[in-house]
């Protein structure tokens, strides 16, 4: 099906079902219960899950396959966002031209930056990409303010020209009239599910991106990229020119980043310079490694993991804690709140840091490996039927052991 083998098609199908049912799956708790705090099924966060999923899937094509660790991919995300917002300001609020332009511009940027940075490898490559991204960030924040609107970020405004839009066109990003922020709410007992246009657009694009990434992984090109990671010398003496392969991977991942940036701006028409900062580049590295570099599903999992923490854990304050434990005796309640307090709310970074460390220490193959170990416990017999994911994780371990 779709030129995929059975296993890959199965994976795609599972991802598709999970993605499309996300508004339900991510809202497992009734809206008025104390646990509703952990619901993630609201449009903005779900959009971020899939958009950063796209970003990480693309990054994985570069890092997971070729091993080139870019610390500057946030620059393409930012460039994509700026292009998209400009498109919406100048041309039309329809997201199609915005997204297309963001992919193209990010692609052009990545050709230039990739061409220069790929003259070096290893950490020297990483620092070159970092340098480009930081330059972009610093300039976007300051001297490029006429283009980027600096600190406040580029926003749409009522008096933008929008030459393609008629007088009655929607003034919010839309897909042929369907506004990104329109949503249908379904109540099911005390559960509330929200199905938003924006999320489904992102989800469909993410599935396409995921599908493309499977195809790339299974293609001769993908194999060549893994060969680049494994042994460049052998590549050269096998008659293969590694430069165009790595550059192509760099540009593809740059375009994925641009797509993610364009989608971010389409869901929420704002492009800020912080999107290009090195911490943002670091975030996608963390997502990819945390989920499992070189695996198909890992980057998406990693993206979801980090965004969930950022958005859900940061909102748990002492009031919420007291609410949870209010059924307990006072002293015990206060004790529990005191113990948990440093790890939630303003301490969400601490929890995230600790979890990073735990995952890296105990699950070198990332969350995907964790899932496999978990799965293995339940079906011991099936050990040989290792999926592709298992292979990638295994390979990582073996490389590590050398």
């Amino acid at each position, binding site marked *: 099906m779709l030129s995929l083998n059975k296993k890959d098609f199965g994976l795609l199908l599972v991802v598709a079902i999970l993605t499309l049912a996300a508004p339900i799956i991510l809202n497992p708790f009734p809206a008025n219960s104390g646990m509703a705090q952990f619901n993630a099924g609201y449009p903005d966060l779900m959009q971020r899950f899939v958009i950063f999923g796209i970003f990480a899937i693309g990054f994985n094509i570069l890092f997971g396959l070729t091993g080139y660790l870019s610390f500057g991919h946030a620059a393409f995300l930012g460039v994509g966002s700026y292009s998209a917002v400009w498109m919406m300001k100048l041309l039309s609020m329809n997201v199609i031209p915005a997204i297309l332009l963001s992919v193209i511009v990010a692609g052009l940027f990545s050709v230039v930056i990739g061409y220069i940075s790929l003259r070096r490898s*290893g950490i020297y490559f990483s620092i070159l990409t*970092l340098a480009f991204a930081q330059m972009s960030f610093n300039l976007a924040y300051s*001297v490029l303010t006429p283009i980027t609107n600096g600190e406040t970020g580029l926003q749409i405004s009522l008096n933008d020209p929008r030459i393609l839009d008629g007088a009655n066109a929607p003034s919010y990003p839309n897909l042929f009239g369907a506004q990104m922020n329109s949503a249908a709410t379904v109540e099911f007992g005390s559960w509330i599910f929200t199905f938003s246009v924006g999320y489904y657009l992102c989800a469909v694009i993410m599935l396409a991106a995921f599908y493309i990434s499977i195809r790339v992984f299974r293609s001769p090109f993908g194999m060549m990229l893994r060969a680049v990671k494994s042994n460049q010398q052998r590549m050269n003496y096998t008659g293969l020119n590694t430069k165009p392969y790595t550059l192509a991977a760099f540009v593809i991942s740059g375009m994925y980043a641009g797509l993610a940036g364009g989608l971010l701006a389409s869901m929420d028409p704002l492009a800020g310079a912080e999107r290009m900062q090195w911490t943002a580049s670091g975030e996608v590295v963390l997502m990819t490694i945390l989920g499992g570099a070189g695996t198909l599903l890992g980057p998406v999992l990693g993206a979801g993991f980090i965004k969930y923490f950022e958005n859900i854990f940061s909102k748990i304050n002492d009031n919420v804690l007291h609410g949870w434990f209010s059924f307990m005796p006072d002293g015990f309640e206060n004790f529990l709140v005191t113990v948990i307090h440093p790890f939630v709310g303003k301490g969400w970074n601490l929890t995230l*840091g600790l979890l990073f*460390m735990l995952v890296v220490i105990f699950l*070198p193959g990332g969350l995907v490996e964790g899932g496999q170990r978990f799965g293995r416990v339940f079906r011991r017999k099936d050990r040989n039927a290792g999926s592709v994911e298992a292979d990638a994780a295994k390979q990582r371990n073996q490389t590590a052991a050398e």
Partner: protein
Amino acid sequence: MDAILLQLLNGLDKGSAYALIALGLTLIFGTLGVVNFAHGALFMIGAFCAVTLSKIFTLSHKAAEPSGTDFLGNPKFEDVLYIKEWFGDAAGAWLLDWSVPLSILFAIPIMLAIGFIMERGLIKHFYKRPHADQILVTFGLAIVLQEVIKYFYGANPIPTAAPEAFRGSFDFGVLLGFDPNAIIYPYWRLIYFAFSALIIGGVFAFLQFTTFGMVVRAGMADRETVGLLGINIDKRFTIMFGIAAAVAGLAGVMYAPINSPNYHMGMDFLVLSFVVVVVGGMGSLPGAVLAGFLLGILESFASMNEVKDILPGIDQIIIYVVAIIILLTRPRGLMGRKGVMEE
């Protein structure tokens, strides 16, 4: 002319800070082959050693002061410092004044201990893991360390003053025959410069002239061979990690009066120190020092108005521009060895 001299001086001073931070980073990389993203956090912890000591010195108990009321109109209490009670007013005040230099003594054992614990407890398990894993785990550690500091000290910068004797600035211009005030430079920054030079020199001498240093240098060049010689290189590496942590910590202690320490100062320096190390060449100690000074000086010159008028915003990006130019013209940085971290 005086403007150029002034920025040169300033660049040397900036550069000495960069070099000092980068030195520890490259030491860890060169010896242990570990990319330590928590190095900035060690620098930050060093600065907080100084903060902690001055907090210890200002421990106090409340004594009722009948004369006034506090902001809520309640009876007022005055803080009485234990240190003044125990050592007398004059000695207590002196200790308080000199808390930053005294923190050096306080910081060395702490930083060594942190270094040992980090190496034995965490880093040693990562020698054979890919660099990406090392980056991730040390980055996670850096976040944890800074959040812990934030939990105890808050997010606001904490002023940590240099001793009274070192406040103010020295007028070089007069020495060189310029007008007064043409080239002035704060005493404490001069001390920082000298201190950096001392530490950098010390580390070099230690590696150059001691047997321990010789073994470590041999280990840097070829770890396996040294291992085959039956030398327990692991133990030495642990000590090296402790030393690197101490170097970062001392850089932090002395930096505290220059800029009030805050919990994320480590992250601010992390990217910069990596750029310095890479421009110098991964694993090269002289390279790191050279690159630190080079970038410091260029950054200073880039902040001159005369330069900014021609290239607006150049001071925002100078470090990165220089890094790109150097890496493109010299593939392994200024003094990097071949084959190190090129995969």
